């Protein structure tokens, strides 16, 4: 293996080499920084490089491993944090002028867990402002660009996390997902993105967007890596009021189980009737469904409520809760927001209490409807984005495609939803599909994604960055 191969190691591969002392965590970190030092001026994935921290944590991991201590597969593993996640002593800016000087004195729970697992923080990653506005060109940092073609949008809001992992700057980064913000950028950048079950991963120390929908999840290049990161960050946290006190399985345990006999429901009306997907997106998903059928899954069509019902529920909740988070700043410092976020927050001022209560009553109905629909299935698959990535500076196209997605239904329902690549457009941009499970059934979601991934070579392709 040459130094040029190091940025493309999966976590599973790197962990094996580190454990066997064939790869030094320090050299690994240095190789990743060498690549991002050379290329990130084109991508803008980082808000802050934490070189001193990464080197210190990598050296500690190296010493521990040399001394016979093994903390597991993330020992010595470099990673990034979306810049709404606290790391004590490092600013958490939310990519916003409002929080440029916000330095937390305590780690987020997910950060503490990654430290405990032996990770090395490479840096804080760009995001849509406060995980909602964007892409914005009027903030202190520019928006990230898509590694597959830098003229194109990464999706959001975990845009820097996605750009960095797709570019080979790091094997994993954390994002947050309230209406699709892990899965959207993962889809547009050709990655695996997991929105875990609401309550599976602590949000303590993570800036809120909408309390009743916020989740934290990993962006990685493979399904196995996603499961490895989730193993490290999941688990009950009494400091997070929404944290679920449930048994945590080993999310890698069922990866090899295959899909033979699994009952797969295809939510086809989402991308053919409710919204008509782009033909290349449609072909990617249908080909992926064929692969699952060929592997022995029992594939049948599945009906959920129309997408616009989920969208009105999700948007009403997000706007109400986000306005509550931001009301004081909107009153006192409205000009310190980027225009995009301010425009997305202000509608919350006009949502009445009764509208919000109706939305959360509707949410309960949608959850019950999904539970009923899943009685005949083990897993559901559908589209994530309905379009390939748009050009980042084509504001009209970004605005047109932004709501054309099938991600927010699974924030409303609360269960796990994984996106993974299912091919590329003729112009070389990533295509994706989404795999959805019952609440707390991440293992079956990962098992399905892994079976598909093993049959294809999409996750081995590299963006043409040089």
């Amino acid at each position: 293996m040459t130094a040029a191969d190091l940025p493309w190691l999966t976590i599973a591969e790197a962990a094996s080499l580190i454990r066997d002392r064939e790869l030094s965590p320090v050299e690994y970190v240095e190789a990743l920084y060498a690549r991002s030092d050379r290329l990130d001026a084109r991508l803008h994935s980082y808000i802050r490089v934490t070189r001193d921290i990464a080197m210190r944590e990598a050296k500690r991991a190296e010493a521990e491993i040399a001394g016979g201590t093994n903390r597991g597969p993330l020992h010595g593993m470099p990673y990034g944090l979306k810049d709404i996640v606290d790391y004590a002593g490092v600013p958490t800016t939310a990519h916003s002028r409002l929080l440029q000087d916000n330095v937390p004195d305590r780690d987020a729970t997910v950060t503490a867990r990654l430290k405990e697992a032996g990770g090395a923080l490479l840096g804080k990653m760009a995001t849509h402002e406060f995980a909602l506005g964007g892409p914005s060109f009027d903030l202190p940092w520019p928006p990230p660009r898509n590694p597959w073609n830098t003229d194109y949008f990464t999706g959001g809001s975990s845009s820097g996390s996605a750009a960095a992992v797709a570019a080979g700057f790091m094997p994993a980064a954390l994002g947050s997902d309230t209406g699709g913000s892990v899965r959207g950028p993962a889809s547009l950048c050709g990655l695996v993105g997991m929105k875990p079950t609401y309550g599976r991963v602590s949000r303590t120390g993570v800036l809120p967007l909408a309390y009743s929908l916020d989740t934290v999840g990993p962006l990685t290049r493979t399904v196995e890596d996603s499961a490895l990161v989730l193993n490290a960050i999941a688990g009950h946290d009494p400091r997070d009021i929404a944290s679920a006190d449930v048994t945590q399985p080993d999310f890698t345990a069922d990866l090899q189980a295959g899909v033979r006999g699994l009952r797969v429901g295809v939510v086809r009306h989402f991308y053919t009737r409710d919204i008509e997907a782009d033909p290349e997106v449609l072909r990617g998903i249908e080909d992926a469904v064929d692969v699952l059928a060929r592997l022995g899954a029992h594939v049948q069509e599945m009906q959920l409520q129309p997408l616009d019902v989920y969208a009105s529920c999700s948007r009403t909740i997000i706007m109400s809760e986000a306005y509550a988070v931001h009301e004081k700043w909107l009153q006192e410092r409205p000009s310190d927001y980027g225009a995009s976020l301010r425009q997305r927050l202000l509608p919350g001022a006009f949502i009445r209490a009764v509208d919000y209560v109706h939305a959360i009553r509707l949410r309960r109905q949608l959850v019950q409807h999904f539970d009923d629909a899943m009685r005949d299935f083990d897993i559901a698959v559908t589209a994530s984005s309905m379009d390939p990535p748009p050009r980042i500076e084509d504001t009209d196209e970004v605005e047109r495609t932004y709501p054309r997605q099938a991600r927010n239904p699974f924030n409303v329902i609360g269960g796990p939803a994984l996106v993974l690549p299912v091919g590329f457009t003729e112009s070389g941009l990533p295509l994706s599909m989404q795999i959805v499970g019952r609440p707390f059934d991440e293992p079956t979601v990962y098992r399905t994604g892994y079976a598909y991934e093993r049959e294809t070579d999409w996750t081995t392709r590299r963006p043409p960055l040089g």
Partner: protein
Amino acid sequence: MRTDDVRAREELERCARRLGLVNLTPGQMEELRQAEAYARDLLARLPREFALTDEPAHTFRASDDA
């Protein structure tokens, strides 16, 4: 400026004051006007047919034993 436009602008300014949004620039007042229209459109599409006993998804529980 037409009387209707003046009335609409005054109404929007009253609305901004009521919301405590007293530091908006003229351009941001236009954003507020668009936000109201967006919210009206969104809420028009929100289903509102529920049984009296349909409770919200997040119902407060005083304790784990409740």
